[in-house]
């Protein structure tokens, strides 16, 4: 039985969106962001509410094709569609976009043009070696972002406020890590899908409210007896998995345990903390620059992360889900399989629902082989 039913997460999220709408009525500003390189600490320190825009969905994808070609990645298309559909997206006063992959770099231009939403484009060097001039440029970019956020909210980003947000988010990351780590055990009680729901809900709630939810989950895990049956332990990877991809996780977890992941909507968000030494913006620059992603060049840090997690969590196989036309992730499948030395199931699909039974067959066949 699930620790927390999906419906509960959905209710929490719905209530939070309503709460955000009410805060917005009182003058609060909402900043939408997409990926793990967005410094949420700065958004909150500027008095705005960060909302991660991470919905997919077939209807949204179709709606988005009005603005983008059919060979744009499904997530980008769904983003465009969701600005006209999703209640959380409709609350957004500005978008904070980071140039990760090429399509995400270009998406804000379409958002700005078609929805008139201001975009704060944060340039982060795509090359991953932390050379001083690259980190310094990123630090400069964060300074520019602070100015943009200040203009939006009328509030500057003071160091002391930034310090407290860094501490709060570090605390949230630590709690999520602790929760995820319960899956190191045999027959984990925490499902992979619940872990992703928890992370997604935590971002929306913000550190303070999220921590109490996570504490509750940890209490539930401690109180429940562990099942005796041993199932196959899997790692998840690939393009970002949104709330609308949970069907896939449910499908996998009918027969196996998802014990870890290398997703930007999962472990990679909470894997590390902002360092404690130095001025706040300098620390944020070092922290965010150092995050790994398949898009970075070279991307060996993500390979190291994947290898470490697979070993520590004793993963026996990898389920790797990419979105159609998501080159940065799709190109790496073969290489990743070689690096991990694990069986890999690669599913490359959009948000359409018609092929779910085919996916089911493939997942079941893959699990049978393990």
């Amino acid at each position, binding site marked *: 039985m699930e620790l927390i039913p999906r419906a509960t997460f959905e209710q929490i999220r719905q209530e939070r969106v309503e709460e955000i709408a009410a805060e917005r009525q009182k003058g609060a500003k909402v900043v939408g962001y997409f990926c793990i390189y967005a410094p949420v600490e700065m958004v909150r320190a500027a008095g705005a509410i960060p909302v991660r825009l991470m919905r997919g969905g077939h209807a949204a994808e179709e709606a988005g094709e009005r603005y*983008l070609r059919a060979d*744009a*990645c499904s997530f980008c298309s769904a983003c465009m569609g969701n600005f006209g559909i999703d209640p959380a997206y409709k609350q957004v006063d500005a978008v904070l976009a980071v140039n990760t992959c*090429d*399509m995400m770099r270009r998406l804000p*231009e*379409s958002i700005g043009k078609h929805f008139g939403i201001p975009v704060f484009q944060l*340039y982060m060097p795509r090359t991953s070696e932390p050379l001083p001039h690259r980190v310094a*440029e990123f630090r400069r970019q964060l300074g520019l972002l602070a100015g943009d956020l200040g203009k939006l909210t009328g509030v500057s980003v003071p160091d002391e406020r930034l310090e407290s947000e860094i501490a709060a988010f570090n605390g949230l990351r630590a709690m999520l890590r602790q929760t995820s780590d319960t899956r190191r055990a045999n027959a984990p009680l925490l499902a992979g899908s619940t872990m992703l729901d928890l992370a997604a809900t935590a971002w929306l709630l913000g550190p303070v409210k999220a921590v109490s939810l996570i504490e509750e989950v940890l209490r539930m895990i401690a109180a429940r007896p562990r099942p005796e049956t041993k199932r196959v332990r899997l790692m998840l990877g690939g393009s970002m998995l949104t709330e609308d991809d949970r069907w896939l996780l449910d499908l996998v977890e009918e027969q196996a345990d998802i014990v870890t992941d290398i997703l930007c909507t999962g472990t990679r968000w909470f894997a590390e903390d902002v360092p404690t030494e130095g001025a706040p913006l300098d620390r944020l620059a070092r922290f965010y620059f150092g995050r790994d992603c398949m898009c970075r060049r070279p991307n060996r840090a993500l390979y190291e992360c994947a290898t470490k997690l697979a070993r520590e969590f004793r993963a026996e196989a990898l389920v790797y889900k990419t979105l159609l*036309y998501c080159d940065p992730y799709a190109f790496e499948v073969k290489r990743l399989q070689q690096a991990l030395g694990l069986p890999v199931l690669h599913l490359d699909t959009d948000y359409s629902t018609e092929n779910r039974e085919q996916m089911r067959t493939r997942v079941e066949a893959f699990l049978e082989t393990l």
Partner: protein
Amino acid sequence: MSNVEYSDPRPARVGFDEWMELFDRVPDELIERYHYYGNGEAWSKYLFPPQTFAIYGMRHLRRLKFDNSLAALRMWGFVQNETERLFRARQTGRRVIATMGDLGAVPVIVNSFPHCVAFYPDCIWWTPFAMESRVLFDAAAELGVGDATCFSRAALGAFSKHSYFPNPDLVIASTGASCDDYSGVEQLVESLAPDMLWVEEPMRCDARPARPLEQLLVKEYERVVERMEKLTGHSITEDELREGVRRANRVRKLVARLRELSFRDAALAALEMMVVEFGSLHYYSDMDEWTAALEHLLATAEGRAARSERVLPEDALRVVWVTPPADPLFLTYVEDAGARVVGTEYVINQALEMMDESKPPLAAIAESFMAASLIGTSKARAQSVIQQARRYEAEGVIISGILGGSHCAMEGRLIADYVKAELDLPVLEFDVTSPSREVSRQIGTRIDAFLEVLRSRR
């Protein structure tokens, strides 16, 4: 150079067989005159008839139409000869450096070093079309890069095949605000390359000053210099780099004039001009000879303009072309259908910008790179299209894309919207299909219908 021994026929676009006949008329002493790497020995000759290259596998040459001048014949011979030239470079002790992704900046530095040759594996993207073969795409697929992406994946196939260029001494891979397909290819090439240096390409924000990003680029270029010095054992001077910039500017100036003569006076056709523009990226691995070939071409074009001779009819429909077609047959098709290209936005404009010779060389290279359309917005790219359309009174815009190409998927509609909003010009957007012997009938019909619309608006 003088053409006293040979006079060109009246300008025209000719087919493969006709070109062979023209080649027969070229005196032997002229054929003997042209050599690459400034070498007088027989192995460095390159003026061969197109049949030579068709026999070597470039089957598509049989279907294209070419300019009938000696200068064009020379240019084609030089360009088609590049694979052989790169292997000769290795044999003659030169360092062969693969420059990837930046499209025009890094070779200026590499070529400033003595006995070093830069080339772009990126440009292999034409090879599957020229050869009418999927061999390189299949090789890329074996390494994990399938069909739903840019044709530049051919470069990955070429690295794995080891027969399209020698194994480079160094790969300098630029990435950043660039297309994902090629960035992904670069990442996979890393495991096939003996040595690789990653160079950052910043993202340009048009609302903010570019100067800090130029400074970032200068730091990146200093790393290139440092790595080249380590590789060659040669400590480069500022004067050598300055001379490198000056030589590159010479090429860029020639190309600028050729663009003007072609777009305004139809002195050259689109196919030759595409080859000319891409030559500014890496000079087809021999800067001096490429410069000489361009000078020859320019003399021909100037002569035609002075005599009011045109290679395409005066009443041809005028179009601006956005994104280079991986299959050059599309250019021939459009011209056969009654249009001519009067402007291009081939995503390589950083290689066409003049560099400021009064500035420190690396700063000058960085400054010109910051004009690159690939690192900026689609709006900026559309503005370049709009400016050219205005300047040469274009009647329509053609955007040729690639299915699954990351920037094509995001930019095509935006560029079309901006152009329509500002100029009220019809825009045709289509995707280049896989290598084949002909333009697909469906796209051909769309091009025909588009040109019909342009004609009806006159």
